[in-house]
């Protein structure tokens, strides 16, 4: 029962959503169901945070070497949460100030480190060891040159006027062609394949064949 009832519910919700797509008068139930799902999904936003909170509080309680850092994290969390809950989140609040001046710069900077790593990886790991990898690297270099101003800039400085009259922005055009024609074709293949896979997974979920998301247990 602990498993069967939720599986039946999942089946009913799934079948209803499929049928509703083809039967317009079902919109009343459909609207209500969607409202419900939006509300049901609210706790999902914060449930992932609990493991982080647990991790840091454990470190503090057990006085591990990481304790000072975890304390920073914990204090920051409480200050941020309380200022938002009490003072609001709108313009001119403490919450917004901290968001703008602490959270934004740090998150943005963390990811900007990847610029350095990608350069170092380009140097140390990206090798044309097979024909496929070679083709990929050549396309990458072409796109990197042509999709930023330097491609056209160099072209227009190197080529004689007669060539420029024919094609003033050839690098950009070539990159555009790659993206719109061969690369697009491959991506379309990927989309079709992934969609069929997603449909298969959805069918398995609705029929209760795929139930790993329900977790183990009776």
């Amino acid at each position, binding site marked *: 029962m602990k498993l069967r009832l939720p599986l039946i519910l999942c089946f009913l919700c799934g079948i209803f959503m499929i049928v509703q797509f083809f039967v317009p008068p079902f919109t009343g139930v459909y609207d209500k169901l969607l409202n419900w799902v939006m509300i049901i999904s609210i706790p999902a936003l914060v449930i992932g945070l609990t493991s982080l909170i647990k991790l840091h509080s454990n470190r503090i309680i057990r006085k591990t070497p990481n304790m000072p850092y975890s304390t920073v994290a914990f204090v920051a969390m409480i200050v941020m949460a309380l200022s938002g809950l009490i003072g609001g989140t709108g313009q001119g609040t403490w919450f917004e100030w901290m968001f703008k001046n602490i959270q934004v710069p740090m998150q943005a900077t963390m990811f900007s480190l990847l610029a350095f790593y990608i350069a170092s990886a380009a140097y140390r790991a990206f090798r044309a060891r097979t024909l496929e990898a070679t083709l990929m690297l050549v396309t990458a270099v072409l796109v*990197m040159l042509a999709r930023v*101003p330097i491609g056209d800039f160099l072209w227009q400085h190197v080529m004689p006027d007669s060539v420029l009259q024919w094609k003033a922005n050839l690098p950009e055009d070539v990159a*555009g062609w790659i*993206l719109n024609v061969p690369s697009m074709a491959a991506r379309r293949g990927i989309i079709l394949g992934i969609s069929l896979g997603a449909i298969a997974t959805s069918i398995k979920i609705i029929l209760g064949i795929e139930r790993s998301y329900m977790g183990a247990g009776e």
Partner: protein
Amino acid sequence: MSFWEKIGSFDRRYIFALIALTVIVPLLIPIGMPITTTNEVKSVYDYIDALPPGSAILVALDYDPAALAELYPMSIAMLKHAYTKKIKVIGMTLWITGASLGDVVMREAAQGIAEQDKDYAYLGFVPSGAVAIMRMGQDISAVFNVDYSGKSISQIPVMKGIKNYKDISLVVDLAAGSTPEAWIAYAGTPHHVPIAIGVTAVSAVGYYPYLNAKQIIGLIGGMKGAAEYEKLIQARGRASVGMDSQSMTHIAIILLIIIANVSYFVIRRKNKKEIES
């Protein structure tokens, strides 16, 4: 050890320094390389430009601070364009990290050209992406009964007469994740509302099939796309300023790849000869 062998083994911090230099120097000493506009971006601009004043667009700011460098300039450029054309803008987000960011972005773009609630509204965040998009197809006010600041939506003048996608001339999704797919499948195709997207360069390549199938009217990709939009509205902003650095760093990385591969082949040939002899 030959030159080509040595070159493969130096500290990667030299590469870090090279990248830092190629970013910083062009910012300090700009070259001002001309920016070519592509059809993908121009079609978004043209579509918004041709909308009659008073039509409404829905702008979903589905990104977080990690994508700020790419999506902030294009959001500002696109919103400014819409505001100056007297188009009503309804902002929202499907990313909880985007909730505060959206508020800031909408306000900054509006500075001096548009007024909150009169010319634009910011509705804030709603959970469960695709489900919310579907529900908005029936009734936006069922998803957002109040705006970001908690004001009842019925008291916001700009929302008057806007019930669902039928009253929206264009949905723009500025996204750092895969929300454009949800907008296409749950709003664009079934409700016949045109969709334009602005995405980070990482995911831009994957959206060309939708452009080709006319499921999206245009595609603004990364900082370069933003720079193109800035050029189209003739306002040199953050993205345009960054293009020189972008160009120089690309050249640096291309050279790194070439040097590394030459070294790889030289060493490989040498090793082969050694094995043969």
